[in-house]
């Protein structure tokens, strides 16, 4: 038997408010999905009809075939994948290696190095993109993967997270492995890395997302269509005088699918990743 709660108008108001916010955050996403299956006239019809009259896949075809009918979107997807996956891997590897070095070894200058690395968090990418662009021009690595990836190999935030996490790792395990004659790189690879999986997951998702989202740096580095990334491709639709809204929404939806899949399968690492800043205080 349930205890009947007394009716409380304030509670009702709270629920209403919370649900209005759900409506606000989710409707645009639903709009993207339905609009990707609509014709231009249906997308911009007043009043808007939420259910597509027929499942219209032609938008997806146009999104993939592209404005110039050269299927460049597929190449752009591959580019985004290459860049995002590489950055995720290097962020994890370099971040854990450095974080491990800072957490578990005593050497001269350790604290200075740690402070220097932390200080780079105060340098926003937007403030150094012009000098970085000049470096890229000098090295002649415009329109290359190296140029797209190089400035993002590792993040100070990643190092910080790894250091915090690994400093709680029991040193006795490491010493035991040393007594057993394991090499230092071996210890890192076989003991430290497998024990840092939660941080690895959080960091790789963070790194992958940041590059999957990145528009600014590819705009500077990739001028050739075949070296552009997904955000640039979507921008090209918006730039058309006569925007193909349906295809644009289809491209946006395709671009979002990997993130949706990651989010649904690894929700706690997404949410944990955003809460991770809080642990700084701890």
């Amino acid at each position, binding site marked *: 038997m349930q205890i009947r709660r007394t009716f409380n108008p304030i509670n009702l108001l709270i629920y209403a408010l919370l649900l209005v916010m759900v409506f606000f955050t989710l409707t645009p996403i639903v709009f993207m999905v339905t609009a990707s299956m609509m014709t231009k006239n249906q997308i911009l019809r007043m009043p808007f009809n939420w259910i597509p009259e027929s499942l219209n896949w032609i938008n997806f075809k146009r999104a993939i075939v592209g404005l110039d009918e050269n299927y460049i979107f597929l190449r752009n997807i591959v580019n985004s994948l290459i860049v995002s996956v590489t950055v995720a891997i290097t962020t994890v590897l370099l971040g854990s290696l450095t974080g491990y070095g800072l957490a578990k070894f*005593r050497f001269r200058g350790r604290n200075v190095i740690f402070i220097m690395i932390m200080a780079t968090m105060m340098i926003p990418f937007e403030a150094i993109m012009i000098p970085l662009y000049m470096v890229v021009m000098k090295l002649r690595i415009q329109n290359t993967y190296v140029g797209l990836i190089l400035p993002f190999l590792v993040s100070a935030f990643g190092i910080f997270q790894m250091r915090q996490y690994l400093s709680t790792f029991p040193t006795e395990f490491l010493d035991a492995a040393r007594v057993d004659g394991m090499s230092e790189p071996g210890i890192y690879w076989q003991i430290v890395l497998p024990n840092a999986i939660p941080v690895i997951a959080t960091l790789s998702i963070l790194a992958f997302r940041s590059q999957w989202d990145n528009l600014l740096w590819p705009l500077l580095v990739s001028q050739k269509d075949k070296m552009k990334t997904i955000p640039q491709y979507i921008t090209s639709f918006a730039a058309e005088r006569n925007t193909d809204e349906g295809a644009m929404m289809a491209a946006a939806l395709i*671009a979002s699918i990997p993130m949706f899949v990651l989010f649904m399968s690894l929700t706690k690492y997404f949410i944990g990743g955003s809460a991770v800043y809080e642990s700084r205080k701890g």
Partner: protein
Amino acid sequence: MGTKQYKGIERKQARWGFAFVVPSLVFFSVFNFYPILNAFYTSFYDRRALSKLKPKFVGFGNYVRLFDPARAANPLSFYNSLKATLTFTLGTFIPLLIVSLLLAILISNLKSQKAKRFLQISYYTPAILSSVVAATIWMLIFDPRGLGNQWMNLILNTPGVDHKWKTDPVMLQVSTMLVYFWKYIGYFVILFITGLATIPQTIYEAATIDGANKSQTFWRITLPLLKPTVVLVSIMAMLQCLKTFSTQYMFYTNGSTRAPINVITFNIYITGIQDQYLGRASAMSVVLFVLMLVLTLFQFRTTKSGENIDY
């Protein structure tokens, strides 16, 4: 003998530790410290990309130009860029802060774990989309024939009015703020929920025993104890807003006028990359850097003092 051997092992280990740290150190030197120093250096020169001319030393010339009051009339001047950035930052982070704090408190007080989870995930979902995707969706919503007008007219009961989301200068700013607010609200709600969870339940119990009512508990307990989180979150939100680029870029590419949304980062991009004035763009970069540095240092100071709270 024994200690000597021990020393040897220690030294060998120290070398390994250093070796593990060196790759990142080299990386940060080349891709962070050098560029920021270079930005300072270049900001004192009149330097153009793709030009055969040697960069000309102009001292503070670039900075003087940026802050020249005579240029304030030019809608695309840096002065107006600063104004657009500050408008955007304040107009985005204050609503973000208030609404996310409110939602986080409401959610934290819910009994049902399922409802909590559902709400958190629903609010967070926009954050997983890329900024470009977020901007494209809202560009269609803000179309004269789009949902934005339909909803607004429904709420205000003004059938057939076009609210000029993408054409009116003020509405254009509001539109970009709304996109940002939409994308980041869930992220900040979760930050606050995490912050709220660190306040021990026993304090509330003690307050209830002492006869405190709900509003007293909020103003006297929750808010003061949450202060470190509030400061941290607001500075993070401000830093995020100061760097905004994609949304403004997308609206501009889609045909909106540049002046109201010509935020600093966007101006750096146009000046440095499109117009090739690298010196001038570097001076803007330095201003952006200093602006954000001040905020970050403030954040460090306040989070340090926040650590002294004893529950």
